[in-house]
């Protein structure tokens, strides 16, 4: 097992649900309620020292995972050595919610807003959880798999320019 993943498992034996190193890309799956503590450990521990949060993203597995429908994925990197690691937390289909990591890495702010906008995952204690890409008032979270690719008519709902309107 990858050293840092082992360290997490030793520190939080109850939190880790799974481990995978497909193509030497270590991924640990943790319980959503302990994701924040795990990530703080990975950031602050001298050996691990993941000082850079590459991205926060999410996957909609629909009913293909027994752990939950949505997976929030944290991509970590240590700038000094370039080593990388992935932390996953599965959330239920109803009301998916997880602790924000913005207090740990400030750059998580916009990444979490993107996940909220497109996937509908809520982040507790996020400083400013608004839509970031879609216009305010958009009603759905379109990256969910049950949303039609061509949308529900939002893209055709504009009024064409009419010169008679003046300015």
């Amino acid at each position, binding site marked *: 097992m990858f050293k840092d993943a082992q360290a997490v498992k030793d520190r939080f034996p109850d939190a880790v649900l799974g481990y995978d190193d497909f193509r030497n890309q270590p991924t640990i799956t943790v319980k959503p309620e302990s994701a924040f503590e795990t990530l703080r450990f990975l950031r602050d521990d001298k050996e691990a020292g993941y000082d850079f949060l590459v991205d926060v993203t999410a996957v909609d597995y629909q009913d293909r995972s027994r752990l939950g429908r949505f997976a929030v994925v944290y991509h970590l990197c240590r700038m000094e050595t370039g080593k990388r690691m992935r932390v996953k937390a599965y959330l239920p289909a109803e009301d998916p919610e997880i602790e924000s990591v913005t207090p740990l890495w400030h750059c998580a702010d916009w990444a979490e807003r993107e996940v909220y906008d497109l996937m509908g995952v809520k982040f507790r204690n996020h400083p400013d959880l608004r839509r970031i890409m*879609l216009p305010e008032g958009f009603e759905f979270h379109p990256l969910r798999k049950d949303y039609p690719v061509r949308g529900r008519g939002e893209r055709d709902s504009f009024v064409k*320019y009419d010169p008679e309107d003046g300015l």
Partner: protein
Amino acid sequence: MGIESRLPTFVTTKLDWIVNQARKYSVWPMPFATACCGIEFMASASSRYDLSRFGSEIMRFSPRQADLLLVAGRVCLKEVPVLMKIYRQMGEPKWVMAVGACASTGGMLDVYGVVQGIDKILPVDVYVPGCPPRPEAIIDGFIQIHKIITGERIADRKHGD
């Protein structure tokens, strides 16, 4: 040379013709470049393709000074009010060119967040095909704009300011 002194001091012509001639060779574009088509447009403006041969070398990033709104790239839902505002700020006479497949039809981005062709929201004069179009195609788009201008009567342009 003294040749000026031998020229007549006036010529007779049609007002439409002389005004259109002036408009034709000073089409100042306002580039609304959102994607790779914008890069191709930069190439057409640079020395190798040299758009200034056709009088369009001056980009105007203030819509109030521009004649041609050049939409190069896809327009997302959130950009629609912005594009509309820019178009409304442009003074008459004004023309619109949709550069590339995305601006013309939505192109390969047949998804919820992309306007399926800017002609859904604006009156488009010229569509330039390509993904992205070559600079030659963009230059041809300008030639088509010139042709449109040649066929216009100045009295036709009565809207706006």
